């Protein structure tokens, strides 16, 4: 058994042992607040067992292991539906950026340790009402105020802001230069006066995203994590941190096995739906697509193991998997017919077709819309030209609204 396989076996055993306390059955019927409290205990258990910050430096409480160990653990962890979703953004982007760019190292160490143990949560304040994809077009502004700064404006789609203690934020500090040159990156205390968080209820019924308002919020200059005007670079670094996370060729929806089971169970024209050519074709096509993504992901792991950089094809996973999950979920509802009307807004998108279907659009939009991902593939991988950008090179305050 290779070292990595031994690591996987150990991780799998630990995850199994956690199921009675933190698994799907234990979470059933909990309110969001109760589930979050359970999630904090789960995160602490992970930390105590050495599965938090797996590839982070040991001096901030990490395990000092590699990326491979991290995604190996995550591959096991995601099989069980543990309450870890509240910490995904926090530990995925803002906290690693704090580690990389935070200037007060003692403060950084304290925050990272608390975040790893589930005591504190960080959010990422990037998107705004005027634009998400066009990050550099943001309007929230920070003006100098004595020795520090004063922030005014609004962010939106901020995941878990309502439970966050801190956030990282990109704001405009100079509107007289081209749009991506006038941005600066800070961290903020989410409990500071002038910060208002308002949850947004989404189509599927849950409210994990928020509007966040900043009204004369004062922050000192030691919150700054980039040079003044150098915020865009740090923001891009945030987005590039984890190109290879544990991916899911089911697009974070139900596994294809569940569709096959459904097709065997239900009748279509007096015979099992699994014998219907239309259903068979969709099963076959979806299997081929998912098998391709799985092979891409396995190859990426092998390349990392061999010390190589995986190819850019890893960027296909979200694009291809989520939109096909959306269609397959529609077909699964068709297969159930009027027996499929029942809806449980607390059901998991990973094993419930209606939940998978109604939440699929979020997956196709959040973290880079399908269209943005296609642009990225076309421009970065294939060398096709950028779109026409009339605001290019123009000072921000002169861009026509």
């Amino acid at each position, binding site marked *: 058994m290779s070292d990595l396989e031994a690591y996987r076996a150990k991780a799998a055993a630990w995850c199994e042992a956690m199921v009675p306390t933190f698994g799907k059955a234990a979470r059933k019927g909990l309110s969001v607040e109760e589930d979050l409290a359970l999630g904090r205990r789960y995160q602490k258990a992970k930390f105590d067992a050495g599965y938090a910050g797996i590839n982070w430096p040991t001096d901030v409480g990490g395990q000092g292991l590699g990326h491979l160990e991290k995604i190996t653990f995550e591959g096991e962890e995601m099989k069980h539906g543990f309450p870890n979703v509240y910490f995904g953004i926090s530990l995925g982007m803002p906290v690693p950026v704090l580690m990389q760019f935070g200037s007060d190292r003692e403060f950084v160490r304290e925050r990272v340790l608390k975040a790893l143990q589930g005591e504190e949560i960080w959010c990422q304040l990037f998107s705004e009402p005027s634009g998400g994809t066009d990050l550099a077009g943001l309007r929230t502004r920070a003006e100098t105020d004595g020795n520090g700064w004063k922030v005014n404006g609004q962010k939106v789609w901020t995941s878990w802001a309502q439970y966050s203690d801190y956030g990282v934020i990109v704001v405009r500090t100079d509107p007289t230069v081209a749009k991506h040159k006038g941005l600066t990156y800070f961290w903020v205390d989410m409990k500071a006066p002038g910060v208002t968080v308002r949850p947004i209820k989404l189509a599927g019924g849950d409210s994990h995203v928020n509007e966040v308002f900043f009204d004369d919020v004062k922050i000192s200059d030691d919150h700054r994590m980039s040079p003044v005007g150098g915020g865009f670079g740090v923001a891009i670094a945030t987005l590039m941190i984890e190109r290879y996370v544990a991916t899911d060729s089911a697009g974070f929806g139900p596994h*294809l096995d569940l569709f*096959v089971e459904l*097709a*065997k169970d239900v009748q279509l024209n007096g015979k099992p739906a*699994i014998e219907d050519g239309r259903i*068979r*074709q969709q*099963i*076959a*096509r979806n*299997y*081929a*697509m998912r*098998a*391709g*993504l799985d*092979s*891409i992901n*396995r*190859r990426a792991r*092998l*390349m990392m193991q*061999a010390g190589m950089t995986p190819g850019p*094809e890893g960027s*296909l996973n979200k*694009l*291809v998997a989520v939109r096909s999950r959306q269609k397959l979920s529609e077909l699964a509802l068709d297969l159930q017919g009027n027996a499929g009307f029942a809806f449980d807004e607390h059901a998991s998108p990973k094993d419930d077709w209606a939940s998978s279907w109604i939440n699929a659009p979020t997956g196709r939009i959040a973290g880079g819309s399908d*269209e943005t991902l*296609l*642009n990225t*593939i*076309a*421009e970065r*991988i*294939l*060398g*096709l*030209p*950028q*779109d*026409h950008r009339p605001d290019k090179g123009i000072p921000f305050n002169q861009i026509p609204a």
Partner: protein
Amino acid sequence: MSILYDEGQEAIATESRRVLEARMDKDDLLPLLEATGEYHHGFWTTAKEQGWTALALPEAYGGLALGLVELGLIAHQAGRTLSGAPFLTSGFGAAKAIELYGTDAQRSRWLPGLASGETIGAVAFACGADALPQHPGVTLTGDRLDGRKIGVTGALAADVAVVLANGPGMPALAIVELDKVERVAVPSFDNSRCIADLHFDGTPAETLVVGSAAREAALHIIALQAVVTAHEQTGGAEALMEIARDYAVTRKAFGQPIGAFQSIKHRIAELYGLVELARANCTHAAAREGQSDFITAAAAARLSATDAYDTAARDCVQIHGGIGVTWEIGLHLHMRRARSLAIEQGSSLFWEDVLVDRLSGEAA
């Protein structure tokens, strides 16, 4: 487990690409479309010279004892440059059938010639849309074959064929020498595939395998061939994606390269996705030869590669506009090949059923 190519395999890919790019030219392929039964001799000579015919066959019979992974790499490159003859795949299928199911005498008789490429092989299983028909259209009685096999790729040039037949009350695979068989050329939309109908009339034949094992053997052989073909399809799709990209960055309309329009750039980005999914499935399937999930992996490779090549052919021509449909530019060579490869070794309709039977436990 998917594999990473080792240095030797990378070298096979690089060298075969170099050789084929130097020797293959679409201007030599265009006239072949208008001459039934002609193939590109330069391509076939190259395949023999380079040892590609011997690649995946045992050393004892003049082979190089490499496998599906290496042959797949060659096929990928052949697909990029539009291989000039179908015999690499058809001969490989015939040779594997004889190697896996034949007697020592049959192996000694046929494999050295197939490995050197001096003997050309063909596989005759299908009947219309059914790649493995229950009623194969020919009957094996003792050591005689009667009946007709239609649309056999490579048959116009082949010396030997492995045929799926009705034995006495059960399926059988038989080896048939083709020199005395009546072959009726099929003028095809992809003429260099050398397609013919074979008419057997008391033709001498040798039995390879009979009974239910014959159907399993036949499925295994076309799965092996399908993985080779899937690599070829992926290579063709990859070449078309690059051709589309190159055109989109140079051709201008409304004062900008057409590749700046999202209707064009997204189409090409989607092709990238299809090519990479097909490539990943191909690599995986080739590495699964001999494992219990090989047929499943082969089906996935076949389905995604057929989708990639067909879509790339469709979209690459569309992105070119009017020039794309001219004879001279030759994109129709890929359109034609995409379709002939989609049919050989069983169409998507066939492989979808094979795959779903396995996923739903019906074929276990």
